[in-house]
């Protein structure tokens, strides 16, 4: 498959970093080392909630080999100031408390001190010598419990923002938000069918295989270098500058290859600690999280309680929808409850919608972004309820969704009116897929669900440099998390009219390219892609002016075609076309180096829609779910490198399957995480899955020169309800609480058996 409109876009060349990644040569964060480096380790709270009465580090500091110890005292207090971090917002006052606990520890795993020592063994021994005097406080893990009057309050100053009536005393509810369209009261009054249910989902971890790691080296003149695994090295620079009271120009961050992030590497944990330890010790400091640390102390995605009410006419037309979302923020305010609310009904054109969301803190690690933050949670509830509607009205789940699908001109409950979108096309593509056209095998049942994500633009910078032989280096500043270098190089090749392998895409450190917002929000191929296209256009302008100079004509008399400068017409004169290599060879005589640059704030991200289909069987005795067939259809705008677009759909779908079937944070009575490892926190493995079939629907985004829409996030949204709906149809049992793990499912089936037999 290739795109007939283009020469390079839509092809599947080898990725530029392929050889490095299959030979072990690619350098991930833990692969960086500096001569004389120390090893940094973090002491973490064993308690879910406690006041820190005192910390005595003297014995640790006295241990031979220990070169520095830091606690919260080594980090300046921060103002109550909210800044963007990935697709979420964070408050700097909270961020400094999250990287190092101050007055209280708020979750098990919360950092309370860090040491740097000559060896890892000494560093670990030093941690055991730090004496923290805790006053243990009552804790609260569950969101519903945390919202109750009388629950242990995490932050004595937290008053609910947007509360109606205004809050008069502190609670764990950080914020109440509301979105409304039309009149749901009138809508429900008109409805012939009303279905209302409450759903819960559990906290899950992004589960990147590469743990957080950072290496920092501070010089005596105040300059700092950092190498770390991050989705945004400019954000690492920004956070470190704020948290350490430094200027951004003093900090140079080089991103390593990143071993997965999915949103979880848009914030900082280790970097500021490593810098501070390096400043205090005068040596480079390397820090790496263990897998257990990753689970206990780095951002999971929240769990949530979602109440949904849907009213419809007997022909399947939905006339009213209500949704209440209570979402875990973790220890500090800032859950993705906003996008969860906005995405809940966004797939559909519904006249009357009312959505309320609550951002709720509890004694869990602060949540971080995870692929379409918040959306899978609300979507699970809404799409499950819609499936119940389909069952009750005996309608095909795709037909009912087609009847209600959002189209161009649909106004969402959050106020935006959709431009060109592909929800209808995607539903139709799913319906026409080989999978959906094949009857369900005996013993299996089929589930369908849809999902929506906004996609993001934001700030990007890029440059294109011509080498003296006419090959081109394309420089951008977004860590490549899933093949974006290939897609950027393909767009540059298309634009420039030269071969893909004449272009080398590189990712520059913070001192070598202008600012770039994080790799997140499905923005890199779209927004940074646009910056690359614009930098190449700037380069072409320069190339044309060099040809004009060579020929002694006006620059307007030169066109760029198939990698060559040509006279615009016969009136300009007769000249042999000049290739990029020829223009590069004579650059010294025509004005020096030939470069292009672009920097922009990109708007107009095209929203994405996905529709998934799953056939599965449930073992009634064990509750084990076997997925027999799975298809993910999605409007991808234009597939720049289709293999990596498919890969996004497949990977996202499988993360969603894990969320639906097995993954969950399990807490014990003391508020400690009971499954902080890959053995007990079970992400999908190869033998759990079939092939994941994909259908790439291409409805180009009119705001991008190549029609790009972000693709990375949508595919994690539909699987939760797709799997849940299939399980409901396989067992006759509607499970309202995720995950549908074998013990839970078999217990529910056992409980339902006499009931079902009686019916």
């Amino acid at each position, binding site marked *: 498959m290739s795109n007939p409109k283009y020469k390079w876009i839509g092809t*599947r060349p*080898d*990725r530029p*970093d*392929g*050889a*490095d*990644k*299959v*030979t*072990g*040569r*690619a*350098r*991930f964060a*833990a*692969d960086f080392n500096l001569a004389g480096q120390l090893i940094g380790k973090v002491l973490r709270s064993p308690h879910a909630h406690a006041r820190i009465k005192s910390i005595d580090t003297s014995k640790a500091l006295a241990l031979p080999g220990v070169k520095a110890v830091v606690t919260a005292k080594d980090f300046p207090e921060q103002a109550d100031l909210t800044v963007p971090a990935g697709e979420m917002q964070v408050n700097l006052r909270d961020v400094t408390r999250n990287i190092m606990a101050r007055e209280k520890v708020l979750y098990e795993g919360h950092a309370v001190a860090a040491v740097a020592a000559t060896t890892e063994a000494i560093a670990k021994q030093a941690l055991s010598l730090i004496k923290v005097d805790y006053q243990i406080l009552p804790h609260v893990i569950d969101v519903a419990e945390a919202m109750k009057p009388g629950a242990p309050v995490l932050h004595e100053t937290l008053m609910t923002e947007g509360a109606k009536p205004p809050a008069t005393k502190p609670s764990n509810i950080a914020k109440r938000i509301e979105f409304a369209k039309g009149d749901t009261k009138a809508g429900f009054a008109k409805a012939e069918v009303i279905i209302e249910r409450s759903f819960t989902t559990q906290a899950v971890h*992004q*589960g*990147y*295989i*590469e*743990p957080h790691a950072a290496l920092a080296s501070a010089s005596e003149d105040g300059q700092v270098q950092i190498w770390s695994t991050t989705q945004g090295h400019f954000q690492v620079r920004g956070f470190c500058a704020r948290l350490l009271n430094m200027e951004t120009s003093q900090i140079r961050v080089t991103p390593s*290859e*990143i*071993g*997965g*992030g*999915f949103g979880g590497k848009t914030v900082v944990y280790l970097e500021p600690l490593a810098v501070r330890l390096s400043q205090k010790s005068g040596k480079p400091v390397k820090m*790496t999280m*263990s*897998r257990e640390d990753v689970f206990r102390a780095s951002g999971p995605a929240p769990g949530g309680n979602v109440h949904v009410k849907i009213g419809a006419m007997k022909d399947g037309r939905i006339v009213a929808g209500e949704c209440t979302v209570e979402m875990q923020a973790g220890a500090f305010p800032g859950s993705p409850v906003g996008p969860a609310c906005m995405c809940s009904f966004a797939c559909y054109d519904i006249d009357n919608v009312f959505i309320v969301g609550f951002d709720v803190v509890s004694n869990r690690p602060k949540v971080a972004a995870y692929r379409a933050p918040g959306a899978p949670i609300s979507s699970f509830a809404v799409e499950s309820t819609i499936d119940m509607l389909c069952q009750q009205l005996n309608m095909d789940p795709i037909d009912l969704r087609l009847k209600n699908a959002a189209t161009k001109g649909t106004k969402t409950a959050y106020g935006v009116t959709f431009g060109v979108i592909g929800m209808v096309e995607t539903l139709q593509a799913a319906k026409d897929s080989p999978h959906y056209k094949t009857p369900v095998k005996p013993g299996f049942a089929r589930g369908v669900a849809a999902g929506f994500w906004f996609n993001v633009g934001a700030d990007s910078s890029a440059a294109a440099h011509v080498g003296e032989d006419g090959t081109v280096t394309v420089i951008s500043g977004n860590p490549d*998390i*899933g*093949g974006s270098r290939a897609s950027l190089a393909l767009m540059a090749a298309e634009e420039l009219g030269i071969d893909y392998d004449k272009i080398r895409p590189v990712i520059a450190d913070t001192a070598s390219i202008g600012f770039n917002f994080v790799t997140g929000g499905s923005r890199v191929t779209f927004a940074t892609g646009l910056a690359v296209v614009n930098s190449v256009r700037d380069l072409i302008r320069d190339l044309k002016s060099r040809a004009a100079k060579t020929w002694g004509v006006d620059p307007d008399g030169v066109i760029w075609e198939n990698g060559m400068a040509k006279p615009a017409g016969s009136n300009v004169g007769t000249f042999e076309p000049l290739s990029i290599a020829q223009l590069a060879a004579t650059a010294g005589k025509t004005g020096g180096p030939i470069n292009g640059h672009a920097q922009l704030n990109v708007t107009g991200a095209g929203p994405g829609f996905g529709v998934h289909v799953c056939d599965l069987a449930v073992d009634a005795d064990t509750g084990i779910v076997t997925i027999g067939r799975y298809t993910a259809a999605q409007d991808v705008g234009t597939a720049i*490198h289709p*293999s*990596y677009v*498919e*890969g996004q759909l*497949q*990977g*996202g*779908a*499988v*993360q969603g399957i894990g969320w639906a079937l097995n993954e969950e944070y399990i807490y014990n009575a003391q508020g400690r995480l009971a499954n902080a*490892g*890959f*053995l007990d926190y079970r*992400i*999908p*493995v*190869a*033998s*759990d*899955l079939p*092939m*994941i079939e994909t259908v790439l629907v291409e409805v180009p985004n009119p705001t991008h020169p190549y029609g790009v829409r972000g693709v990375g996030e949508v595919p994690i949204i539909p699987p939760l309800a797709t799997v849940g709906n299939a399980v409901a149809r396989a067992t006759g049992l509607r499970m309202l609480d995720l995950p549908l793990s074998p013990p839970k499912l078999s217990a529910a089936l056992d409980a339902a058996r006499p009931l079902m037999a009686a019916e």
Partner: protein
Amino acid sequence: MAKIHVTTTINGAPTEFLCDPSQTLLDVLRDQLGLTGSKEGCGSGDCGACSVTVDGRLVCSCLVLAPEAEGAKVETIEGMAQGDKLHPLQKKFVEMAALQCGICTPGFLIASRALLERNNNPTETEIRYWLAGNLCRCTGYDKIIHAVMEVAAEMRESAK
């Protein structure tokens, strides 16, 4: 504590190192020998990112004590390509986009090679179970399984 002197062969090269009795093979490979292609994803044998072979046996090097390498032949990702020629699995993984972030890739390649050395005609299910000890969070495994199936087919073709 006295260090242990270990004499071993790594990727065909005679190698000696000194280690603590409690050090893992993974730590020695990465921290002492500079062979950072083997990755630590969990340190508990659950993710397979540190997969190597010891005397042909596929192991998680985070679960092997370094002194156990005494007299053994250890193969790591760094020894998979021959000169500038990628192993067919390495080539196919790139061609078929069987990696996204790439952190799990060395482990998958070592594990896949170990499978195909034993069985060049595995079923899809056999591949999926053989690779069930290697976690990938990016790809959903689809393109990895396809790549291994494709290389197996090529191996059978060239063996004819």
